[in-house]
């Protein structure tokens, strides 16, 4: 499948954090990166390499020191925090390694909340997706009443329910056993294919990496890592 027009376009993206010595440590320095509509890219990187920070920058959870993050033509980096929240709510589905489900809410409510702040989706859509991930019989269960695999499936359903243009997945199989990891991964990939969403997945798990064609090394992308190791 040939890549479509760019959905995500990063340019000169830099992010640093305060260092113990009082200075600042550069964590992310990505001169250029793009992801086309419907494209699936996996970034390989070790723990602590800044992958989550990278995804947080793309999703607008963090603001970069410099650079631009264009999503569908809108520069996330140039927006204020409120507009970033809105853009994230409407265009990005985020799957976290630790699921980040809301413990006081049922499965259905967790998925519905994922849609509420976006622009698309309704209860029927949430029910359909929970059915798609095999949790129709667990709609009113709370996260603590579910297994890890089931929780991750709810998290996947939540991220995809609003039919985002871009799905970010941060070590989505990190807390799952082999069987659940494989199923979760299939689910993410299939639903992204079904909805036409672009997928940017970060992982250091060889099994995950082996199931994708387009795998890139995060160290090759992030200049800050090269400088740190040299």
């Amino acid at each position, binding site marked *: 499948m040939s890549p479509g027009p760019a959905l995500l376009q990063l340019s000169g993206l830099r992010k640093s954090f305060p260092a113990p010595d009082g200075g600042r440590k550069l964590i992310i320095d990505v001169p250029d990166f793009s992801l086309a509509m419907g494209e699936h890219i996996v970034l390989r990187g070790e723990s602590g390499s800044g992958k989550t920070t990278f995804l947080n920058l793309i999703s607008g959870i963090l603001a970069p020191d410099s650079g631009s993050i264009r999503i569908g033509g809108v520069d996330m980096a140039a927006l204020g925090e409120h507009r970033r929240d809105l853009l994230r709510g409407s265009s990005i589905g*985020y799957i976290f390694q630790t699921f*980040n489900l809301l413990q006081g809410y049922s499965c259905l409510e967790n998925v519905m909340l994922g849609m509420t702040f976006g622009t698309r989706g309704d209860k029927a859509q949430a029910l359909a997706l929970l059915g798609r991930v095999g949790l129709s019989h667990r709609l009113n269960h709370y996260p603590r009443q579910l297994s890890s695999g089931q929780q991750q499936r709810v998290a996947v359903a*939540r991220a995809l329910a609003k039919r985002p243009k871009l799905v970010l997945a941060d070590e989505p199989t990190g807390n799952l056993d082999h069987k659940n990891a494989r199923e979760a991964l299939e689910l993410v990939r299939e639903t992204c294919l079904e909805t036409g969403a672009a997928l940017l997945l970060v992982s250091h798990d060889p099994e995950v990496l082996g199931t994708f064609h387009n795998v890139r090394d995060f160290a090759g992308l992030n200049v800050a890592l090269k400088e740190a190791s040299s």
Partner: protein
Amino acid sequence: MTIALIVRRSLRQHALSTTITALSIALAGGLLMSVWVVKEQAQRTFTQVNTGFDAVLGARGSKLQLVLNAIFHLEASPGNLPASDYEYIRRHPAVKLAIPIAVGDNLRGYRIVGTIPEFFTEVEYAPGRHFSLSAGRVFDPSAKEAVIGSFAARRLGLAVGDTFHPFHGLVYDVRNQHAETYRVTGVMAPSNTPADKVVWIPIHGLQTMSGHDPRAATDVSAVLVQLRSPSAGFMLDIMYNKQGNRLTFAYPIGAIMAELFQKISWFDKILTMVAYLVAVVSAAGVLVAIYNSMASRRRDIAILRALGAGRLFLFGAIVLEATAIGAIGMAVAFVAYAGIVSAVAVVIQAQTGVLLETFAYSPVMLWAPLGMIALCAACGLLPAWKAYRTDVAENLSPIS
């Protein structure tokens, strides 16, 4: 809908602190409304209750003491006045009705007041309302008979046909029992006036009770007066109070009672201030409860933010939660209010015979809940600001 769901879930997740905080709001709100209504009702009722009389004539002294003694049966009598003074005012062309009373005895703490049968037949104690008996008949003025006020009858356990011995003085002392035996011939229907807590006997009986000074056998303690016109009151006021120096003419009764409330208004103010303070402290409890739970909420806030909830949305959700706690508290406050005012009304009725209309509408029932809810909402601003400032990335752990 989403914000309502988030608030509902948050209240449920912090059910214990929500319940305790709402209960403290309820007690504070109930107390505030009770203090206000009791103050308002007491002032209104006591300045309006005159048992159908415009003025009281008594011995020279304080007008307030005279009114409290003759109308509310609370104070000691300032002294007696000769029968001739009663006869004079009874025949005065400006006077429509004059009822003499004599006090000085009690029945196990309830005042025995001597009067004439006209008190039960002629007096309109409120527009269109005359005293009536729920059982029996009015006493014979020449017999040792009694009519018991409804409240006193209930408390003393007396019914028609029962007998009793009066006790000397206004304070009950078992050693001061009179030898006379009185028989109950009637029990008054409730009038919600001070007359309900009195044991009424013929005035002649009280004047000539064994042990009373025989030289005062025709004296009366006070004369309750109905005037033909308001101007007559001012005329008699000048005659007795300005020109005379022997008697006191207490007129108008409502103004004299209003003066009493004016004198004790400092106490009202202190009570109201305490109620306000309790309300503020309990509303601050909302701030403390939500603020203290912010540590456990940070992760949820971060997740909601990651899902696209704006900072202002979450700020609003916290303020709404504080508002909801206030609203729940104030809904329960009406139960607390009902309990407090009912208890206070019983005490006031026992002391004065006057029944406050505690469940009548008062503006405080509108502004106190609204004020408390607004105060709770204001107390939600600080934790809401903390939620607004929550760092999303820091609270979405772990990182890879």
